[in-house]
């Protein structure tokens, strides 16, 4: 594949044609936060955390799904980009249930980590939260849709990695959610114990049932800033 030269944060780098901006940046040691993106899944561009500024483009573009083109001038951490990312996290958190203290995945939660990295402070927005009943009837997965951020990683992982199609997106707008069958709680009839979706879920929405006395997963989150 042909080599392409792009400018990232004022530095000329070469990358391969067909790469996304995110891949080109990572290759050159520049970290762009992502949430809905996962290297093993097809890019979707749902969360917009990964936006970057591209000179000549009317809007910010999602780096996880935008391919590079020759001569592109990209800014991954400009003020505008950072402000936008912060706003996106704030909005995600505004509709998030916020029970991180009790959350099993609090220490490995990508949403929390990104919020900490971006130094998102106290919530400024108050909005109606969608509370859903905890689904804990399956011996293999516990699902708490209240913590879901609609990144669709579970749905993609289930079909692309595990080869099933347990999840789909239903309803619209604020009501949209990830459904199983005709919007039934997840049980062992539809989902086996492969655990793929659990490992792809960036938040605490999908988890393993916790054994009695078992500790929280992951190391405590150290907030560095």
């Amino acid at each position, binding site marked *: 594949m042909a080599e392409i030269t792009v400018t990232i944060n004022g530095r000329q780098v070469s990358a391969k044609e067909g790469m996304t901006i995110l891949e080109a940046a990572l290759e050159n040691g520049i970290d762009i936060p992502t949430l809905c993106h996962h290297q093993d899944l097809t890019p979707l561009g749902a969360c917009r955390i990964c936006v970057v500024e591209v000179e000549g483009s009317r809007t910010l573009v999602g780096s996880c799904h935008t391919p590079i083109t020759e001569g592109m001038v990209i800014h991954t951490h400009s003020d505008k980009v950072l402000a936008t990312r912060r706003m996106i996290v704030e909005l995600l958190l505004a509709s998030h249930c916020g029970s991180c203290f009790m959350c099993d995945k609090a220490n490995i939660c990508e949403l929390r980590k990104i919020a900490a990295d971006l130094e998102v402070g106290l919530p400024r927005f108050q909005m109606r939260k969608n509370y859903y009943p905890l689904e804990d009837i399956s011996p293999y997965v516990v699902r708490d849709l209240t913590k879901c951020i609609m990144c669709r990683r579970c749905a993609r992982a289930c079909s692309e990695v595990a080869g099933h199609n347990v999840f789909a997106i239903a309803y619209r707008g604020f009501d949209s959610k990830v459904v199983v*069958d005709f919007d039934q709680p997840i049980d062992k009839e539809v989902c086996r114990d492969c655990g793929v979706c659990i490992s792809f879920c960036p938040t605490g929405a999908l988890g393993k049932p916790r054994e009695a006395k078992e500790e929280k997963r992951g190391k405590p989150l150290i907030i560095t800033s």
Partner: protein
Amino acid sequence: MTAEPDVARELAEILSHYSGAKSELIPILQDVQEKLGYLPEEVMQRVAKFLRLTDNTVYGVSTFYAQFSFTPTGRNKVTVCRGTACHVRGGARILAEIERRLGIKEGETTDDLEYTLETTACFGSCALAPVVVINKNVYGRVTTAKLAEILTMAE
């Protein structure tokens, strides 16, 4: 709704016009909605089989569109505008009066399956506010006094 075999026959008749390509999902659902007035779960399952999709894909698509209903709808569909212009000219009172007359709330259907009551956020005929639409017939400048007449006209 009537007995199960009826639904099966209707569905078979609808599906006979289609080849089984995934892109036919919405047209099929529209036909079912038109014929049966709603999308029963077992019909969605059969449609999913027919198109070789998963049940939840069909469910996801159909719940996205406001035109599909999952409970039986009445023979007459009454839609009251809740847009700004209609609100200013008394739309809320019109809705309340219809609710009182039919004995149902918005989004509901009368027990005899005669009426379904819905609201919308502007028909684009604000000059006629307040607007009520019954089965594709538009009634403008509606007053609570005129409602009795309008509703019986629909029958």
